[in-house]
């Protein structure tokens, strides 16, 4: 239901990777995360609220991100998310997995 905004359906699990990745340079609130992903993907990957927040809560339950309340740039109270040490390790792992996967897919596409 919530994915109608996404221009490309994200692979299962890739959203987690993207969130962790955009958080690696510091804390961001939910809107900021979605915005960063959209910008960096040149508007190809649009993360809807329906996927974003459940994913954030999931990551929080797993202990990969934590959140604290802060002031957003439009002066609203917002929850800022940041990586935990385990989250950072998880990011490295997922990134390595992702690179292995994409290079493998790339090889198949080029040579098959």
């Amino acid at each position, binding site marked *: 239901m919530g994915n*109608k905004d996404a221009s490309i359906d994200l692979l299962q699990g890739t959203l987690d990777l993207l969130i962790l990745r955009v958080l690696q340079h510091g804390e961001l609130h939910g809107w900021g995360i979605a915005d960063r992903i959209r910008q960096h993907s040149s508007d190809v990957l649009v993360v809807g609220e*329906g996927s974003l*927040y*459940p*994913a954030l809560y999931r990551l929080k339950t797993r202990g990969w991100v934590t959140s604290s309340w802060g002031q*957003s740039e*439009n002066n609203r109270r917002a*929850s800022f998310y940041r990586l935990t040490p385990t989250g950072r390790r998880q990011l490295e792992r997922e990134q390595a997995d992702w690179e292995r996967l994409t290079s493998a897919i790339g090889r198949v596409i080029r040579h098959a």
Partner: protein
Amino acid sequence: MRERLAALGRMVARWPRRRALAETAMAEEMRAHLEHRIQQQEASGLAPAEARAAALRQFGNAEAFKEACRDARGRRFDNLLQDARLGLRLIRRQPRLAAVTVITVALGVGLNVAVFSAARTVLLDDLPYRDADRLVEIWQVLESARPQQFSTSDSEAMRQSVPALTSIAGVSRRVATVRGKANVTRASVGMVTPDFFGVFGVEPIIGRTFGESDFAPDARPAVLAHETWLSQFGGDRNVLGRSIYLDGQVWTVVGIMPRGFSAIGASGAEMAAWTPQPSGNDRTMFSVFARLASDVTPDQAQSQVDALIRPRQSAPAVLPGGRTLHWNGVALERVGESQRAEAAPGLWLLQSVAALLLFITCANLGNLFLAQAVTRYREFGMRAALGARQGRIVRQVLTEAGILAIGGAAVGTAFAVFAVSALGSVDASILPAGLDVALRWPDLLLALSLSLLTALAFSAVPAVVASRLDPRRAIRRTAHVTSGRGTKLMQTGLVATQVLLSLVVLIGAGLLLKSFAHVMAQPLGFDPAGVAAADLMPSNLKTTDDTRELTRQFEMQLAEHISGPVAFGSVPYGTIYTTAWMLGSGAFEWNRSLNAEVRSVSPSYFDVLRVPVERGRAFLSSDSATAAPVAIVNRAFVARFATGRDLVGTEIQTESKRFTIVGIAGDVRSSALAQLPRPAVYVSLDQWPDSRLSVAIRTPDARRASQAIAAAARAVDPDLAVVKSGPLGARVLAVEARRRFYLFALSLFAGVSAALTVAGIYGVTAHVASQRTRELGIRLVLGGTPFRLKGRMLVGGLLPVAIGLAAGLSASWLATTALQKNTAFKSQLYQITSHDPGTFAGVTFGLFVVAAIACWLPARVVDGIAPASVLKTD
């Protein structure tokens, strides 16, 4: 453990607040997000209102996101709460179903918990001594005789040269008249060696136990049992230094032992008080208690003691008459083991029956919930259609059942508290004396787990049935669905199971009831109605020669308080005394002697107790000490020893005295209804004075008689103990207390089982009838007569009953065969075998008839069906 519980408690308590916070945070976060979106829209040039509308459109279904977020956050507890809410709603909507479930579970769990509480206390708990499992009692075994105690020198030898025992103590028991502040009674008093209390490792609750100076010849200290403290001094904490009279001698109270310390030893005799054992008397016999060394097994200790004592016992004991008793070794067992062994079969019996009852409960509720699940198919179907997964519906049914079962267990536990305190107060002697039975943590834990298991047992199948319902069919159809084949099979199975199990319990109870009827039908041989009796126990200082004076004075005193014929002597259900007799006038010969009871009685005895003197005459006041000794024998004596002679006029003698038989009296069951009358010889109290004496008075007011007897006793001798004072009929019943208890307990279990089962049969038939109204209507239209339809329903309802009865008969046969090994059950059977065909047939037939009625009642629904209206409704 407690901290963890507390932490859990805090978590649960804080949980609603935490959830509320999380919800607000989530809402706020969503709102912030929306604001960002609106700003973005405005930035791209839309008017504020349009920007807002566009943002909202893009945002989509916020509630759905929230739901997804809640899922991601984890929400087990949420679901549980929701299930619980649904469960509570069910209770509101169907209070009768809820009430029936709670009561049924309460019965099943309550009875189990009550019995378990007793069994746990007796069989599992440690006795209230330090390291109770290292504490042993030692005695000698003589051929065909009761446990024999040890002499002072034997126990001294054990103390010195048995390495397996670290400490050793002896107690010798005497029965004494105990008089404190309150009343006079006869009780066991233990004379103990110095380290007696140390061996048990129990400290007094008030004062001290014995020190070295207490064993000096002129010291008179006494340690009291808890019971004595309560009964004699009313639990007064300033009891130290007060006086207590033991057989008229004054002793000083120095300590009070805690509750439960009074019952010790294989004899199980409860001690009222302890005094120091005076030294230098080797004729005293001791019960020996000892502590095992840490690495020693009871067997090793036993063989060490055996090896020590054996050489000291070369000569066999010689009884009067020259019979010898051979020494058969030494027995050693953990303290309390015999009491446990004795109580175990009864407790096992009760616990097994309680377990059967719990199974019946489960089967009964299983059917109830199954019917419930089928009638609730619309609700479940609706939930399934709205997206509830199968697991969710299963869980809902399980939670509902769990809530009701826990409620039932709570009610049942409250009931068990009463049952257990009642069990402690009835004098059925199925539990060892001195044990406090009360509900404790393990019992509550059992109640909780039983309730959850019960809930799982009775709701698992219905839950699966409910979750398998096809939502489309469930919503579309407004009329009845006929329950499926599987459901029907399940119902049949559950009803048959209930019938089977309750038939087993009913037959067990039936055997006891029939035995009890047989017992109560036995002729007593005397008439206890309207007779009050009491045992008069003079202190040990009195001799038998004082008896005549005692009875004379007592009768005089009694006459001042109450009128009515009074008799003295050996009243039935009192003390029994047996001696050796010889018929004929030659010299007394032991090898020609016969064993028979002696009943030394006053002349009025036969009148007061209405024991018929069938031939010859009763005693007269002229049969005095100086007159020619006369005797009356009973019919059992004649039957056993007369060999065709007429005994009236013949001589009969003991080792020391000759009597002439002047009459023959009817038989009396003098110790238990189930016991055949034994040969007995009545002698005149004046000619055979006996200090073991009872008084009986025929009066319409037995209650006042007890007071009169007490007053007379006080006036005659302050140290005259009055024991077992009350209506004579009560004594007869008291002896049957255990029998009555088992009968009551098994009848209770059987009654509950039968009630549940019959209710279950009724419920299933009624459910089937309600499901089949339409079908029955159609059949009526097609020409079926109401009578035939009812017949069909009756047969359909009775089919599972018949299956259950057939299986139940075989099961009962097996169960009663197995019960022949259970001494508690076997000892209750009287004049019937455990496979008594009458009981088997009668109980089976009775259950069948009741079941048939339970099927017929709901079948009458056919009469109320108007075929036309049934056809129109759909």
